[in-house]
């Protein structure tokens, strides 16, 4: 929990004929972080595997054929794990064969369904246009005109004037039959000899003609009635086809989902092979894997390759590239379910490097503690918990944030009991600890003590990191052991003064002497490191170029550290400040509620104000408190020990699938 998962580097050598089976196992395994072969010595020497572009294209084509089928059948594919490894070279034939079979079975029905839908669309569009015309307009009579031509159509409302102007030199009649937003439906008459001029003008006016078939006759009402009966027949056909489509959907849903998953998997495997190396007839795969899974992976690879795969394990500390910092070991977080959502917040700050403390658990606990202190209220905590639960159950993508919100709600409610506050009402519950507004000084002291505690924890974690990463010179610096000792002594005396109101003169003298010595150590921490650890001689150290400048730099660093320690501790007063502002907001809400309660229907207004006030406090204060807590965590706590610069573990077979799912 306090360390990321222990990883080992594996190198797998697989004969060419087993590469597909081996890659399939790795893809299914989902806990291998591949190392790009082109970034290794072998890759630089040109031993890089070639990718089969034609096969990749084939899979792209297949996927582009499967997707429309899924869409037209309304199937939402699931990304469940495949029962067996995918071998791209073989699978393409099986997938294509099955796809052709499915297309053959469902193609006709889907085409018919599409055609009927199209005809229904056209008929409806026609009816919509006809409904704009006067019901008694007789098309039979219009078609019997001898000397004039006519047309009916839609034109943009602003275009009628332009059409009239363009026809101003010929005999014409433009009759406006109706209007819909932005459009006018018109009936245009003109003499047959002038009709070419009309065609030019109507073309220019972008007239959208209402076309009737040659055998159309009767009034508009009669035509609409005819179309309605046609529509009824088409709807029946559609219903029958829809039932067939539903049946097909049931029959092929699973098949199509599996075909899609296999295609995506095969494509991933082919893409991953670009990261592999190749020497003669063997592929080389290199990557990081959790140590606990090594045996299982070895067994599975041995099974699928008939014992022809060679797998070699190397501990990171034995790798020269790792020791020299050329290669980064990825970080695989390893936290319990309730803590793991906070990994996102840690990652926002940075990814810890392999070997340093993985601080998510400290982050999570202190975050919840600080949040609860600032937002302590039983009712509001309950609301946060419920909101988190809803997100957790309903919005899968934000499940992690749902968990965080539930935990924040729990801590908020717990502190609500300690403060005796339910939706700001302090008369319902007794305060198990104290009421913030009545004990301001005490609250400030508590937050200072807590701040000192969190900073101390940060310093301890810093020692551990320094020891683990062998940064021994940092132990003597202001940010290291020397600085921490000075801070603890000063903080201890400060605490004693806060609790008892006095400090013995002897203690002050001792602090003075200790401070003098520790400040000296901090200023001289680099020379001391050389003297004690590297065993350089004092003359050698003093004669070294830049010795004085280095000392000056250390003095400034020490001053900076002292100011920073003080500011960081004082910064925690904000916890009390925001808890008080939370309580003050409640006072404001209840004051407004009291004022409105004296008006007409006062009781109702009182509770409306209280409810709205609570909602505003939850939204506004919740946001502010979250930001302040994250700020304290990042700057005051993480700033003390977090080194970062690590690389996130990216399991082969998961990232691509995720993006594919997002796309579809």
């Amino acid at each position, binding site marked *: 929990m306090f360390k990321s998962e222990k990883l080992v580097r594996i190198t797998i050598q697989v004969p060419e004929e087993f590469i597909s089976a081996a890659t399939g196992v790795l893809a299914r395994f989902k806990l291998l972080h591949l190392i790009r072969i082109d970034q290794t010595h072998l890759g630089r020497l040109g031993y890089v595997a070639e990718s089969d572009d034609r096969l990749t294209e084939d899979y792209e084509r297949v996927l582009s054929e499967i997707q429309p089928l899924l869409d037209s059948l309304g199937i939402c594919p699931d990304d469940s794990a495949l029962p067996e490894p995918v071998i791209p070279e073989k699978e393409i034939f099986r997938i294509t064969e099955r796809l052709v079979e499915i297309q053959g079975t469902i193609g006709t029905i889907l085409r018919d369904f599409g055609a009927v839908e199209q005809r229904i669309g056209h008929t409806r569009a026609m009816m919509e246009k006809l409904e704009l015309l006067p019901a008694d307009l007789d098309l039979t009579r219009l078609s019997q005109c001898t000397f004039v031509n006519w047309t009916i159509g*839609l034109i*943009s409302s*602003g*275009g009628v*004037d*332009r*059409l009239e*102007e*363009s*026809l*101003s*030199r010929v005999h014409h009649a433009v009759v406006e039959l109706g209007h819909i937003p*932005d*459009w006018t439906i018109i009936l245009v008459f003109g003499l047959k000899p002038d009709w070419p*001029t009309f065609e*030019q*003008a109507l*073309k*220019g*006016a*972008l*007239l*959208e*003609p209402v076309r009737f078939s040659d055998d159309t006759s009767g009034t508009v009402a009669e035509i609409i009635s005819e179309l309605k009966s046609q529509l009824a027949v088409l709807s029946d056909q559609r219903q029958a086809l829809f039932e067939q489509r539903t049946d097909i959907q049931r029959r092929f849903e699973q098949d199509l989902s599996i075909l899609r998953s296999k295609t995506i998997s095969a494509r991933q495997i082919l893409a991953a092979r670009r990261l592999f190396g190749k020497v003669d007839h063997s592929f080389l795969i290199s990557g990081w894997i959790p140590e606990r899974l090594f045996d299982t992976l070895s067994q599975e690879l041995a099974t699928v390759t008939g014992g022809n795969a060679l797998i070699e394990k190397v501990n990171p500390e034995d790798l020269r590239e790792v020791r020299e910092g050329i290669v980064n070991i990825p970080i695989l977080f390893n936290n319990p379910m309730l803590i793991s959502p906070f990994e996102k917040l840690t990652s926002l700050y940075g990814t810890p490097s392999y070997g340093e403390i993985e601080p998510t658990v400290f982050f999570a606990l202190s975050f919840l503690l600080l949040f609860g202190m600032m937002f302590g209220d039983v009712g509001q905590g309950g609301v946060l918990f419920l909101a988190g639960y809803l997100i957790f159950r309903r919005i899968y993508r934000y499940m992690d944030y749902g968990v965080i919100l539930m935990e924040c709600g729990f801590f908020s409610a717990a502190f609500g009991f300690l403060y005796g506050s339910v939706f700001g009402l302090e008369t319902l519950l007794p305060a198990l600890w104290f009421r913030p507004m009545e004990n301001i000084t005490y609250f400030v002291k508590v937050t200072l003590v807590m701040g000192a505690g969190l900073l101390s924890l940060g310093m301890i974690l810093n020692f551990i990191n320094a020891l683990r990463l062998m940064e021994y010179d940092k132990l003597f610096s202001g940010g290291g052991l020397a600085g921490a000792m000075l801070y603890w002594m000063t903080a201890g005396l400060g605490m004693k003064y806060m609790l008892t109101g006095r400090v013995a003169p002897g203690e002050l003298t001792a602090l003075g002497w200790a401070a003098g010595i520790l400040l000296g150590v901090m200023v001289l921490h680099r020379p001391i490191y050389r003297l004690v650890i590297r065993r350089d001689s004092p003359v050698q150290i003093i004669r070294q170029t830049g010795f004085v400048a280095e000392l000056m730099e250390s003095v400034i660093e020490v001053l900076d550290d002292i100011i920073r320690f003080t500011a960081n501790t004082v910064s925690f007063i904000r916890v009390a400040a925001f808890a008080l502002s939370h309580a003050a907001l409640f006072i404001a809400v209840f004051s407004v509620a009291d004022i409105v309660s004296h008006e007409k229907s006062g009781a109702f207004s009182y509770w409306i104000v209280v409810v709205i006030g609570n909602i505003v406090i939850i939204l506004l204060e919740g946001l502010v408190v979250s930001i302040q807590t994250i700020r304290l965590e990042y700057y005051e706590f993480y700033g003390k020990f977090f080194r970062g610069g690590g690389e996130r573990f990216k399991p082969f077979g998961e990232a691509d699938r995720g993006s594919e799912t997002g796309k579809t």
Partner: protein
Amino acid sequence: MILRLFRYAFTQSKTRAMKSRLLDGNDWHCLLRMRNLEDVFRYLSATDYGPFLSGLSPTGSDARAISLSLHDSLFKNAVRLSKSLTQNRAQVVYRLLARYEAENIKTLLRGIWQAMPETTIRPLLYRLETLSRLPIDALLKTRQIPDAIDLLQKTDFHASLVHALAQFRTQNRLFPLEIAVDLAAFRLLTDQIKTLRGIDRKQTARLIGLFVDGVNLSWLIRFRQIYGLSPEEIINYSLPEGCHITLRDIGALARAADLPLFLSTLPQPYRNALGHVQHWSRIQPVFQTWLVAGLYRVFYKDPFHLGLPVSCILLKEMEVKALDGLISAVGAGMPFERISQVWQGGWMQAHDNHYSRKAA
């Protein structure tokens, strides 16, 4: 007035700052004497256009790439200015540039119509960024015109395009769709101006009206002289809301038999301004001179209204178009005597008039 002063104090100072960065008469004097593209590039790199041309090479870039980079500067200026305006006033600025969104739609439709690959179409599009809501990536993957129009459902151009689809199918050419998009872009602008009130509406409508007159004249000449369309068709391809040219005038101009009759049919003040023109091709540059002078005049009067930023953007746009033309001419190897002759009296003269008045 006091309210307007507060509302436009920042905008007008920002607009004036922007106007001061337009090329002046001296710049044009030098630019019109450049003999090759490298010189034009070098000169422009020391102006407001420098950052936009930095990624291009004077010899290896095609005219379209240069044109797009010059337009980037216009779009950036427009976005900056719009940030100092309230929402519905900023919308006028956005709608003013909706013509470029329309241009992008036309380019995309042409690409789809000619089955061009995505890689060929994309570099031809104006980079409107936040000014555009077009689903470019999806449109580039479309292979059918009706599908492309479906994708534009959430844009203001959809209804016009759907309406023009019938004519597109009848004529089997893109022209009806293109003209529908152009008309829609101007309609959006004029509709937006109608949401303004008082001096904002009056001044903006007047400036846009002048601009629309210019577009109508340009289209009239292009459709009758280049495309040989019938007057009945041309009249329908005109924009409403012009300042001086009415629909009746457009009808008469479309039917005018020759240039002298065309010029004598023009309404005032254009009859005086353009009366001396000897050739159809000169009408546009001379009109532009007249318009530029009009746009500069806005800066000498009450500056606390939307007309000021609109005027500045139109000036910038005309400058970009002029530069675009100049670069194309120089790139095509047109001799500088000929370039000076074409530009002289147009863009140059407008600047000289403005700056000599400013000096006085």
